[in-house]
């Protein structure tokens, strides 16, 4: 019996696999009938979903308006570049800081809540932010959004790479994704992360052990928003624009569907699986039918009803069967 706490390597095997697949993607992606840009989009959503899962999967806080913070990141990135003339680094920083700041204000208003009230408040705040993006023409450009966002060169001082091509952007996003993943992987295995997991299971007990539960819920929301902001910044960079749609309720729903279908409740890596599955389903199903979201929605419902642990849960159970034979399965956290 392993009688210690879960350990965390800086570079877990699943991340190695992810990096190998994604780093080699530009070599094979066209050959399998896809197009290079889809990989960039998948990585951006992976980042967003991974940060979102800190909140949903680890802290147990259902935010159903998280697309708003992805959008705030995209707008902040665009505004920093268009209005302030910021370069890539400053604009990325603006995306992270903007989303974190707005997230901090929203979190301050909702962190004393839990469950359904928490969820409803996040939807309300998400809609407020979406409405602002639509109506505050002078800043956000209204329904047209921010156009003509450039892809500036990635400047490291001693060297500089243009990001104009999707391949260059692909590797830039991959590096950012790896850094974010490593930090979040450390975080969920840190004392902070373990207490956060305890908050999910039993808030009252955590408070009776002397912890400031509110501050945990608040800070988890802010961290998750900061990651969403970075993902949103890359989205603006990739799309070369930011528009109200990125912060709509749809996007908020998509990230929930990705995380749940992928298995974020049982696995750190669930959001990766879910983001790839969702976007590939969008493109592959979407090639056949306009109503692909209907079919995806049915898959989503089937997963929630029959296998709430998602794809990662199916994978885990399968591995266990192979390893131990078909004995009774003992549920595990991850």
């Amino acid at each position: 019996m392993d009688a210690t706490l879960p350990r965390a390597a800086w570079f877990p095997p699943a991340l190695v696999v992810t990096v190998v697949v994604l780093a080699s993607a530009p070599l094979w992606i066209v050959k399998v009938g896809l197009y290079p840009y889809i990989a960039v989009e998948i990585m951006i959503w992976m980042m967003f979903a991974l940060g979102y899962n800190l909140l949903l999967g680890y802290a147990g806080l259902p935010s159903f308006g998280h697309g708003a913070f992805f959008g705030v990141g995209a707008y902040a990135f665009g505004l920093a570049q268009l209005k302030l003339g910021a370069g890539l680094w400053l604009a990325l920083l603006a995306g992270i800081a903007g989303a974190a700041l707005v997230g901090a204000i929203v979190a301050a208003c909702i962190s004393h809540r839990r469950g359904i009230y928490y969820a409803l408040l996040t939807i309300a705040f998400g809609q407020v932010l979406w409405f602002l993006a639509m109506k505050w023409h002078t800043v956000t450009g209204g329904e047209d959004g921010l156009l003509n966002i450039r892809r500036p060169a990635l400047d490291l001082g001693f060297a500089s790479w243009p990001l104009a091509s999707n391949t260059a952007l692909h590797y830039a996003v991959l590096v950012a994704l790896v850094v974010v993943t490593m930090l979040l992987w450390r975080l969920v295995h840190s004392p902070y992360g373990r207490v956060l997991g305890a908050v999910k299971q039993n808030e009252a007990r955590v408070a009776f052990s002397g912890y400031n539960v509110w501050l945990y819920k608040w800070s988890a929301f802010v961290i998750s928003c900061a990651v969403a902001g970075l993902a949103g910044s890359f989205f603006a960079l990739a799309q070369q624009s930011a528009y109200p749609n990125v912060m709509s309720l749809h996007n908020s729903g998509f990230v929930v569907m990705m995380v749940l279908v992928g298995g974020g409740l049982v696995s750190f890596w669930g959001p990766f699986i879910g983001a790839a599955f969702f976007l590939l389903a969008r493109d592959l199903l979407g090639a056949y039918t306009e109503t692909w979201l209907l079919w995806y929605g049915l898959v989503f419902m089937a997963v929630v009803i029959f296998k709430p642990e998602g794809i990662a849960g199916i994978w885990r159970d399968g591995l266990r069967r192979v390893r131990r034979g078909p004995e009774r399965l003992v549920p595990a956290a991850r």
Partner: protein
Amino acid sequence: MTAFFAAQGLAKRFGDRLVLQDVSFELAEGEVHGIIGPNGAGKTTCFHVLTGKHKPDGGRVTFRGRDITGFAPKEIARLGIARSFQLMNLFDDYSALENAVVATREFRARAFDVLGAAASAKAAIERAEAALADVGLAGKEGVKAKSLSYGDRRALEIAVALAADPCLLFLDEPTAGLGAEGLERLSALIRKLRGRVTMLIIEHDMRFLFGLADRVSVVHWGQVIARGTPAELRANPWVARSGLGS
């Protein structure tokens, strides 16, 4: 002399129901103090008021001469006061060890360490292991709380309270649902802790409590109706007549 821990005239109402009317008692350092009373007498509410879950509507709570009335649970916990719960209150998806680790002061000191590994919190893990050994859970550290037997879960509940290394420990009906062997284990543990930790124990089981407590307060209708050593209470005609002491 100021008492180690004291409650004076505690009152608590829910709506128009007066659950605690006037509860007062004092604990000396190192004492094992029992609270008994029939169902609905206000015992658990009294606990909730003392540990910060509810704010009292009247009265004062002092700890080491300091007024802590109305403190939040986290503030009370930080003073070194721990409690176990009547209803199970564990982290079901965590191992027994991790349940106890999270409760330690050493882990709490690293509460906002976001990049260090939890597994490297050696001091916290050692203390948690000691607490688990104290309650007889050695060898079951890696078992998830939800996979433990009922008796082991009750024991873990107490281990979690002990892991906080409290100077004052509140136990809410620790014998609830325990078999003879579990009762034996629990009595032995309380005897072992006596002197090291001041304890306030709410209990139904009179035989258990009278065998362990230095003094017992009998609570009924939200008031303390009798108090004394177990021997004194056995001699008290009211307690004898109520059947509580038999």
